[in-house]
Protein backbone atom coordinates (compact mmCIF):
# COMPACT_ATOMS: atom_id res chain seq x y z
CA UNK A 1 0.00 0.00 0.00
CA UNK A 2 1.19 3.51 -0.82
CA UNK A 3 -0.12 6.50 1.10
CA UNK A 4 -0.04 10.14 0.04
CA UNK A 5 -1.01 13.07 2.25
CA UNK A 6 -1.71 16.60 1.04
CA UNK A 7 -2.83 19.78 2.79
CA UNK A 8 -4.66 22.51 0.90
CA UNK A 9 -5.84 26.02 1.68
CA UNK A 10 -9.54 26.59 1.21
CA UNK A 11 -9.18 28.73 -1.89
CA UNK A 12 -10.37 28.39 -5.47
CA UNK A 13 -6.90 27.57 -6.78
CA UNK A 14 -6.64 24.57 -4.47
CA UNK A 15 -9.27 22.59 -6.35
CA UNK A 16 -7.26 22.59 -9.58
CA UNK A 17 -4.06 21.83 -7.65
CA UNK A 18 -5.71 18.91 -5.88
CA UNK A 19 -7.06 17.50 -9.15
CA UNK A 20 -3.58 17.73 -10.69
CA UNK A 21 -2.02 15.92 -7.70
CA UNK A 22 -4.71 13.25 -7.70
CA UNK A 23 -4.46 12.65 -11.44
CA UNK A 24 -0.68 12.33 -11.21
CA UNK A 25 -0.91 9.76 -8.39
CA UNK A 26 -3.43 7.67 -10.33
CA UNK A 27 -1.36 7.84 -13.53
CA UNK A 28 1.80 6.84 -11.66
CA UNK A 29 0.03 3.75 -10.33
CA UNK A 30 -1.47 2.97 -13.75
CA UNK A 31 -4.98 2.84 -12.33
CA UNK A 32 -7.51 1.86 -15.03
CA UNK A 33 -9.23 4.86 -16.57
CA UNK A 34 -12.72 3.81 -15.47
CA UNK A 35 -11.85 3.49 -11.78
CA UNK A 36 -9.60 6.53 -11.87
CA UNK A 37 -12.36 8.66 -13.35
CA UNK A 38 -14.82 7.60 -10.68
CA UNK A 39 -12.28 8.21 -7.92
CA UNK A 40 -11.42 11.70 -9.17
CA UNK A 41 -15.10 12.64 -9.32
CA UNK A 42 -15.82 11.32 -5.81
CA UNK A 43 -12.78 13.00 -4.24
CA UNK A 44 -13.53 16.27 -6.02
CA UNK A 45 -17.08 16.27 -4.63
CA UNK A 46 -15.83 15.67 -1.08
CA UNK A 47 -13.09 18.28 -1.53
CA UNK A 48 -15.46 20.97 -2.82
CA UNK A 49 -17.87 20.19 -0.01
CA UNK A 50 -15.05 20.58 2.53
CA UNK A 51 -13.88 23.85 0.98
CA UNK A 52 -17.26 25.54 0.47
CA UNK A 53 -19.54 24.12 3.15
CA UNK A 54 -17.02 22.95 5.76
CA UNK A 55 -14.35 25.63 5.75
CA UNK A 56 -16.65 28.21 4.11
CA UNK A 57 -13.83 29.20 1.73
CA UNK A 58 -11.79 30.56 4.66
CA UNK A 59 -8.24 30.46 3.29
CA UNK A 60 -6.87 30.15 6.84
CA UNK A 61 -8.53 26.77 7.16
CA UNK A 62 -7.05 23.72 5.51
CA UNK A 63 -8.31 20.53 3.94
CA UNK A 64 -6.34 17.37 4.57
CA UNK A 65 -6.45 14.75 1.83
CA UNK A 66 -5.00 11.28 2.34
CA UNK A 67 -4.95 8.86 -0.57
CA UNK A 68 -4.13 5.16 -0.26
CA UNK A 69 -3.50 2.97 -3.28
CA UNK A 70 -3.15 -0.80 -3.29
CA UNK A 71 -3.99 -3.67 -5.63
CA UNK A 72 -7.51 -4.05 -4.27
CA UNK A 73 -8.83 -0.53 -3.96
CA UNK A 74 -8.32 3.23 -3.79
CA UNK A 75 -9.28 5.10 -0.66
CA UNK A 76 -9.37 8.77 0.24
CA UNK A 77 -9.95 10.61 3.48
CA UNK A 78 -10.96 14.25 3.22
CA UNK A 79 -11.02 16.24 6.47
CA UNK A 80 -12.06 19.86 6.89
CA UNK A 81 -11.82 22.32 9.79
CA UNK A 82 -15.45 23.40 9.79
CA UNK A 83 -18.25 22.78 12.23
CA UNK A 84 -21.56 21.01 11.84
CA UNK A 85 -20.76 19.42 8.49
CA UNK A 86 -22.04 16.02 9.55
CA UNK A 87 -25.35 17.54 10.58
CA UNK A 88 -25.61 19.29 7.21
CA UNK A 89 -25.02 16.00 5.40
CA UNK A 90 -27.65 14.21 7.50
CA UNK A 91 -30.23 16.96 7.05
CA UNK A 92 -29.65 17.63 3.36
CA UNK A 93 -32.67 17.75 1.10
CA UNK A 94 -32.74 16.32 -2.40
CA UNK A 95 -32.12 19.02 -5.01
CA UNK A 96 -34.84 20.08 -7.42
CA UNK A 97 -34.03 19.91 -11.12
CA UNK A 98 -33.30 23.64 -11.15
CA UNK A 99 -31.14 23.65 -8.02
CA UNK A 100 -27.61 24.84 -8.63
CA UNK A 101 -26.18 22.73 -5.81
CA UNK A 102 -26.90 19.71 -3.67
CA UNK A 103 -25.91 16.94 -6.09
CA UNK A 104 -22.42 16.19 -4.80
CA UNK A 105 -23.24 13.69 -2.06
CA UNK A 106 -25.60 11.77 -4.33
CA UNK A 107 -22.89 11.49 -6.98
CA UNK A 108 -20.39 10.31 -4.37
CA UNK A 109 -22.77 7.65 -3.13
CA UNK A 110 -23.58 6.56 -6.67
CA UNK A 111 -19.99 6.08 -7.82
CA UNK A 112 -18.20 4.99 -4.64
CA UNK A 113 -17.85 1.38 -3.55
CA UNK A 114 -18.08 2.78 -0.02
CA UNK A 115 -18.51 6.20 1.56
CA UNK A 116 -18.71 7.22 5.22
CA UNK A 117 -19.22 10.54 6.96
CA UNK A 118 -17.97 11.09 10.51
CA UNK A 119 -17.11 14.05 12.71
CA UNK A 120 -13.60 14.87 13.90
CA UNK A 121 -12.88 15.68 17.54
CA UNK A 122 -12.80 19.37 16.53
CA UNK A 123 -16.19 19.20 14.84
CA UNK A 124 -14.94 19.04 11.27
CA UNK A 125 -16.27 16.64 8.67
CA UNK A 126 -14.28 13.52 7.82
CA UNK A 127 -15.30 11.85 4.58
CA UNK A 128 -13.90 8.40 3.79
CA UNK A 129 -14.41 7.00 0.31
CA UNK A 130 -13.38 3.75 -1.36
CA UNK A 131 -13.33 2.57 -4.96
CA UNK A 132 -12.76 -1.14 -5.44
CA UNK A 133 -10.50 -2.03 -8.33
CA UNK A 134 -11.54 -5.65 -8.78
CA UNK A 135 -15.29 -5.10 -9.00
CA UNK A 136 -15.57 -1.88 -10.90
CA UNK A 137 -18.85 -0.06 -11.06
CA UNK A 138 -19.61 1.55 -14.39
CA UNK A 139 -18.85 5.24 -14.41
Amino acid at each position, binding site marked *: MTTYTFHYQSS*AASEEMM*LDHLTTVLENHRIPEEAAGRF*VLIVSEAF*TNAMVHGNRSDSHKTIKLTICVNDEHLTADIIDEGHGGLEQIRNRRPPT*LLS*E*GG*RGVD*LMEHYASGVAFTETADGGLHVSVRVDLKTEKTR
Partner: protein
Amino acid sequence: MEIVLRDEGSVTVLTLRGRLDLATGSTLKQQIKKLFEKERTAVHLNLADVEFINSSGLGALVSIMKEIRLRKGRLTLSDLASYVKEIFEITQLSHIFEIFATEDEALASYQAAVLN
Protein backbone atom coordinates in the same frame (compact mmCIF):
# COMPACT_ATOMS: atom_id res chain seq x y z
CA MET B 1 -10.41 25.37 -18.86
CA GLU B 2 -10.10 26.84 -22.31
CA ILE B 3 -13.14 28.51 -23.85
CA VAL B 4 -13.24 29.29 -27.58
CA LEU B 5 -16.08 31.50 -28.80
CA ARG B 6 -17.43 32.02 -32.27
CA ASP B 7 -20.68 33.27 -33.72
CA GLU B 8 -22.82 31.19 -36.04
CA GLY B 9 -25.45 33.71 -37.12
CA SER B 10 -27.51 34.54 -34.05
CA VAL B 11 -26.03 31.66 -32.05
CA THR B 12 -22.83 32.00 -30.03
CA VAL B 13 -20.95 28.72 -29.90
CA LEU B 14 -18.61 28.10 -26.97
CA THR B 15 -16.25 25.16 -27.28
CA LEU B 16 -15.04 24.10 -23.84
CA ARG B 17 -11.83 22.23 -23.21
CA GLY B 18 -10.61 20.85 -19.87
CA ARG B 19 -12.28 20.58 -16.48
CA LEU B 20 -15.65 22.05 -15.63
CA ASP B 21 -15.67 22.45 -11.86
CA LEU B 22 -16.18 25.13 -9.21
CA ALA B 23 -13.49 27.55 -10.41
CA THR B 24 -13.89 27.05 -14.14
CA GLY B 25 -17.69 27.01 -13.84
CA SER B 26 -17.43 30.50 -12.39
CA THR B 27 -15.23 31.57 -15.32
CA LEU B 28 -17.78 30.19 -17.76
CA LYS B 29 -20.62 32.07 -16.06
CA GLN B 30 -18.65 35.31 -16.35
CA GLN B 31 -18.06 34.66 -20.03
CA ILE B 32 -21.78 34.11 -20.61
CA LYS B 33 -22.64 37.34 -18.76
CA LYS B 34 -20.45 39.21 -21.24
CA LEU B 35 -22.59 37.76 -24.03
CA PHE B 36 -25.72 39.12 -22.35
CA GLU B 37 -24.17 42.59 -22.46
CA LYS B 38 -24.09 42.19 -26.25
CA GLU B 39 -27.69 40.90 -26.15
CA ARG B 40 -26.65 37.48 -27.37
CA THR B 41 -28.86 34.96 -25.62
CA ALA B 42 -28.78 32.04 -28.07
CA VAL B 43 -25.90 29.97 -26.74
CA HIS B 44 -24.55 26.60 -27.71
CA LEU B 45 -21.97 24.76 -25.60
CA ASN B 46 -19.87 22.10 -27.30
CA LEU B 47 -18.66 19.80 -24.51
CA ALA B 48 -16.66 17.34 -26.65
CA ASP B 49 -13.38 18.20 -24.97
CA VAL B 50 -14.66 18.48 -21.40
CA GLU B 51 -12.50 15.87 -19.71
CA PHE B 52 -14.05 16.27 -16.25
CA ILE B 53 -17.27 17.63 -14.79
CA ASN B 54 -18.52 17.54 -11.21
CA SER B 55 -21.60 18.81 -9.42
CA SER B 56 -20.14 22.33 -9.25
CA GLY B 57 -19.75 22.33 -13.02
CA LEU B 58 -23.31 21.06 -13.38
CA GLY B 59 -24.46 23.82 -11.04
CA ALA B 60 -22.78 26.40 -13.26
CA LEU B 61 -24.62 25.03 -16.30
CA VAL B 62 -27.96 25.14 -14.44
CA SER B 63 -27.24 28.73 -13.41
CA ILE B 64 -26.44 29.68 -17.01
CA MET B 65 -29.60 27.98 -18.26
CA LYS B 66 -31.74 29.89 -15.76
CA GLU B 67 -30.13 33.21 -16.70
CA ILE B 68 -30.71 32.54 -20.40
CA ARG B 69 -34.33 31.55 -19.80
CA LEU B 70 -34.89 34.77 -17.84
CA ARG B 71 -33.77 36.62 -20.95
CA LYS B 72 -36.03 34.51 -23.21
CA GLY B 73 -32.98 33.01 -24.87
CA ARG B 74 -31.98 29.44 -25.60
CA LEU B 75 -29.18 27.16 -24.41
CA THR B 76 -28.18 23.96 -26.15
CA LEU B 77 -25.45 21.41 -25.43
CA SER B 78 -23.79 18.85 -27.67
CA ASP B 79 -21.05 16.27 -28.04
CA LEU B 80 -21.18 15.01 -24.47
CA ALA B 81 -18.62 12.30 -23.71
CA SER B 82 -20.28 9.11 -22.51
CA TYR B 83 -19.38 9.68 -18.86
CA VAL B 84 -20.62 13.27 -18.97
CA LYS B 85 -23.87 12.04 -20.50
CA GLU B 86 -24.17 9.48 -17.72
CA ILE B 87 -23.76 12.15 -15.04
CA PHE B 88 -26.52 14.20 -16.70
CA GLU B 89 -28.75 11.13 -16.61
CA ILE B 90 -27.96 10.20 -12.99
CA THR B 91 -28.75 13.73 -11.84
CA GLN B 92 -31.76 13.86 -14.20
CA LEU B 93 -30.44 17.08 -15.69
CA SER B 94 -30.85 15.45 -19.09
CA HIS B 95 -34.56 16.26 -18.64
CA ILE B 96 -34.08 20.01 -18.48
CA PHE B 97 -31.24 20.65 -20.93
CA GLU B 98 -31.56 20.55 -24.71
CA ILE B 99 -28.85 18.03 -25.56
CA PHE B 100 -27.87 17.16 -29.12
CA ALA B 101 -25.53 14.47 -30.36
CA THR B 102 -23.57 16.92 -32.50
CA GLU B 103 -23.02 20.65 -32.79
CA ASP B 104 -24.36 20.58 -36.36
CA GLU B 105 -27.64 19.10 -35.16
CA ALA B 106 -27.92 21.71 -32.44
CA LEU B 107 -27.27 24.59 -34.84
CA ALA B 108 -29.74 23.14 -37.37
CA SER B 109 -32.39 23.17 -34.63
CA TYR B 110 -31.99 26.94 -34.28
CA GLN B 111 -32.57 27.37 -38.01
CA ALA B 112 -35.58 25.06 -37.85
CA ALA B 113 -36.99 27.09 -34.94
CA VAL B 114 -36.69 30.29 -37.04
CA LEU B 115 -38.43 28.65 -40.01
CA ASN B 116 -41.28 27.45 -37.78
